[in-house]
């Protein structure tokens, strides 16, 4: 178990090093940074992606009902 854990630490450290190295090597041209406007987010969220927004609302409702059913006092009824 201990050598597996050491190997895991080594792999994770290698992953972090690779990520940081790739981030430093890749060229990021100095483009504009910063939020354009909240209106753009608003139009995208409620205009083009309104259907996905509604589906997300239904998903949240389903998750809420499922969580209530699973965590009830007497458990899920058979």
């Amino acid at each position: 178990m201990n050598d597996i854990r050491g190997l895991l630490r080594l792999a994770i450290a290698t992953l972090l090093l690779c990520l940081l190295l790739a981030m430093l090597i890749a060229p990021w041209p100095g483009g504009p940074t910063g939020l354009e406007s909240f209106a753009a987010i608003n139009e995208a969220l409620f205009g083009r992606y309104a259907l996905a927004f509604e589906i997300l609302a239904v998903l949240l409702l389903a998750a809420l009902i499922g969580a209530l059913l699973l965590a009830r006092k007497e458990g899920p009824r058979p």
Partner: protein
Amino acid sequence: MTTFPLAAYLGLSAVLFVLGAYGLLISRNGIKILMCIEILLNSANLNLVAFAAYHRDALGYVMAMFSIGLAVAEAAVGLSILIALFRLKRRIDVDWLRSLKG
């Protein structure tokens, strides 16, 4: 308002991702596993928002909002499953869940 370069956000996101992955692989506590999943998802969200601000595109923010909603649903279901398991065996670690082991 000070603005940081894109690489700062990417570095923070990489560090968060590695922290979450390491905790996810190493921990046996169910609550800890859920928290590590949240850290992973938040590092991905940070990447999305950083690139959206970098390209001045609103799609990244919208994707981050959807990702946050999915993370909320996942956390609710995961926590309720953990509560059900705790009621079953009075244990919170996930070592004993070996019914599907081949």
